């Protein structure tokens, strides 16, 4: 199915995506250099120098993406040329054969028709797909939402679509909905009644929303999902844990889990360490876009999904918010003994 969608993407879309991807890379590199004290203009120059020839990379990516399409277009062109030449030759023969009898003419015409009927279906099959000229009507509706009721009703329709399609539409239309209350209303059908299969990605989106109410809702749901996730895990260790903490309040439960976590880490040796680290993956929080000290603090103390958080820690270290930077440093120091990425991050922290 994915291949099908790829094939109908237009050349312009493919090129725009390549440009956007390369531009993001250069912007990230430049941002990092600016954070190290390089001025903006010089940072951009250095980023481009390090990247190499942008035009060359763009051309190579385009050739890979478009390779099959270019080949089909060439075959199509050759078939068209053959057809035109055949028609011209037959026409010329017909002209010369004016004095020949009608039987020969009929045979020639039949030959032309036969050739056309053979080539036309192939030419049609190989023709480049038509570009969609109108925007997705579902996407247009996001900008037109006026009330929470409308938003919830629309999201209910989306939640009933094929799972990834509903989620992708919400992600694509999210920024077109300017009112936070409406964005909140869009989320509800995805998280209520046990939660939609693709809700986590939407909650990540909510957790980085500029509106504090949407953000709070996103975090709260992520936490609830995490607790539920404990209950559903098949390994005895998770069930034991869940049985132990289910009646505790959140603070006591977290203290218990941190204590368990430390105990296991102390017991872990050498190659056992990685296996033991599996224990901390029990909290299935995805702070991919989580920002803000409160979120980091909660995730830190939960001991949950440490690898996932560590992946994001370098970004937090570069945050403009000093409180957040400090929290990230504490978090990294907390995991100094247990993760092979940490030395690099600490170096980065010290450089800053």
């Amino acid at each position, binding site marked *: 199915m994915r291949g099908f969608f790829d094939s109908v993407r237009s050349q312009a879309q493919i090129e725009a995506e390549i440009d956007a*991807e390369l531009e993001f890379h250069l912007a*990230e590199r430049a941002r990092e250099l600016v954070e190290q004290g390089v001025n903006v203009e010089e940072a951009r120059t250095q980023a481009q120098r390090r990247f190499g020839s942008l035009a060359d*990379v763009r051309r190579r990516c385009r050739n890979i993406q478009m390779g099959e399409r270019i080949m089909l277009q060439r075959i199509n062109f050759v078939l068209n040329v053959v057809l035109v030449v055949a028609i011209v030759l037959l026409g010329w023969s017909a002209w010369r054969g004016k004095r020949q009898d009608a039987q020969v003419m009929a045979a020639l015409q039949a030959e032309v028709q036969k050739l056309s009927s053979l080539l036309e279906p192939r030419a049609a099959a190989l023709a480049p797909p038509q570009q969609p000229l109108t925007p997705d009507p579902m996407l247009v509706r996001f900008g037109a939402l006026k009330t929470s009721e409308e938003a919830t009703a629309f999201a209910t329709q989306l939640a009933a679509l094929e799972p990834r399609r509903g989620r992708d539409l919400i992600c694509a239309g999210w920024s077109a909905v300017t009112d936070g209350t409406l964005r909140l209303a869009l989320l509800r059908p995805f998280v209520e009644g046990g939660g939609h299969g693709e809700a986590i*990605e939407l909650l990540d989106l909510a957790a980085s929303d500029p509106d504090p109410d949407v953000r709070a809702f996103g975090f709260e749901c992520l936490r609830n999902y995490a607790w539920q996730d404990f209950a559903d895990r098949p390994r005895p260790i998770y069930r034991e844990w869940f049985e132990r903490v289910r009646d505790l309040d959140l603070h006591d439960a977290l203290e218990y889990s941190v204590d368990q976590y430390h105990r296991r880490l102390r017991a872990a040796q050498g190659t056992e360490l990685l296996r033991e680290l599996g224990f901390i993956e029990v909290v299935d929080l995805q702070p*991919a876009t989580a920002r803000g000290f409160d979120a980091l603090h909660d995730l830190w103390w939960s001991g949950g999904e440490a690898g996932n958080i560590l992946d994001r820690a370098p970004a937090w270290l570069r945050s403009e918010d000093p409180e957040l930077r400090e929290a990230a440093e504490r978090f990294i120091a907390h995991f100094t003994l247990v993760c092979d990425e940490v030395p690099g991050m600490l170096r980065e922290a010290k450089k800053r």
Partner: protein
Amino acid sequence: MADSRAELLQGTLHLLILKALERGPLHGYAIVRRIEDTSDAFLRVEEGSLYPALHRMERHGWIESEWGLSESNRRAKFYELTSSGRRQLREEQTLWERTAKAIDGVLRAQPKGA
């Protein structure tokens, strides 16, 4: 004086990209950082080679991509391993380990008569 950072050996870029993605989806820039950070900044990825490699690997079906939001809240293309990519990673890793072991054996061999 020679640069103390090593350019990637021919043919290892795919392996390193697959390995970088083993722990979850990353965008291209994060892949570069992951490889450099985990090698203590010893390996240097040719950024111009990274994207053609990613697109080729996607064509092979080893990875798939999806647009999302980066840590800096910008739109970025994230790549994720497919099950075929995980198989490929295992195969390439095994091959690499065998190759490294074989080269090590050659380097450690004593000259005849020594």
